[in-house]
């Protein structure tokens, strides 16, 4: 029952997100608007975590399944590789590689830099949130 309630809440936020993005011309897709709204709702205490936690965790755990039909559907585009293989393959491998490396190094550098500045007690407080 808790599961069904959670699913209904998630669907409602998704619906509101899609409607808001469409009617208010927000330049973000509806699912991301819905995610931001639910984050707001959870942080402000309008929505209680235990209402959505079970259903949400289930959906997130099986998120890869929801990608399967989309990727199988676009697999027919594999033939673009025959037209200009080298630029595509290079972009597909070099792109994620460099983006991941640069982003990770920048964020890690910032965190280290901040850790040196911050008081040890404050840092500990931040760390315990992980658990």
């Amino acid at each position, binding site marked *: 029952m808790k599961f069904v309630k959670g*699913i209904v809440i998630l669907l409602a936020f998704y619906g509101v997100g899609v409607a808001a993005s469409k009617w208010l011309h927000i330049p973000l897709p509806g699912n991301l608007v819905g995610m931001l709204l639910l984050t707001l709702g959870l942080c402000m205490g309008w929505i209680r975590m235990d209402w959505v936690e079970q259903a949400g965790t289930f959906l997130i755990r099986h998120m890869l399944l929801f990608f399967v039909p989309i990727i199988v559907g676009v697999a027919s585009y594999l033939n673009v590789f025959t037209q200009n293989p080298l630029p595509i393959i290079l972009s597909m491998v070099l792109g994620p590689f460099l983006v991941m490396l640069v982003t990770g190094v920048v964020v890690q550098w910032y965190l280290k830099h901040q850790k040196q500045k911050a008081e040890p007690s404050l840092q500990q407080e931040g760390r315990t949130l992980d658990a």
Partner: protein
Amino acid sequence: MLSQFFAILVSIAGYKGATMINARFQRLQPLLVAVILVWTMWWVFSGDWEAFAAGGQWISFWLGPATVALAIPLAKQIKEFAHIWRGVLLGVCAGCAVAIIVVIAIHWCLGSDELVFKSMLSKSVTTPIALELSRSIGGEPALAAFFTALTGMVGVLIARPVLKWGKITDDWAIGIAIGTSAHAIGTASLNRVSPVQTAASSVAMIVAGVITSIYLIPFSF
């Protein structure tokens, strides 16, 4: 109607099979295995890709509520995020710039097809944003969806060695790096690893979508 039902069944069976294979051979990427299994099964049983697409919509619809559900790990980590948001923004801005520069540089050096080039510009952001972006800059949305999916899968595939090589060990840095480079596919791959990484990756995915949209404004004229 019956073929749609079979498409749903085949997708779930392929996914289930892939998770079972992944449990034994952890190096294999479950999404790639699932796609290969489903594609092969459908090709053997039916081969009617229009029916598959119609049935598949019943499954891919749940990507919407699942993305909304990413608010749960996000809300749990919001205090820590508020503490480090500047670093996150800095990292995502740098990463998105690199994503676009790589595509432009390769296009200039090797001269790829114009339509392919424009469809690749948005490839590292989450699929719904990538579709809209490629449409606004004159790319082909279906091709953009293909490149986006491929980028996500390559990103997940190379994640472990790249992060190790770059000595990126902090949970937030890992999550942001994966969310920026491999969008929702990367985020989905993290959920069994760490809730902090999942939250970080969800944040990065949203921020990267916004930043890339801003970066690509000059291309829409």
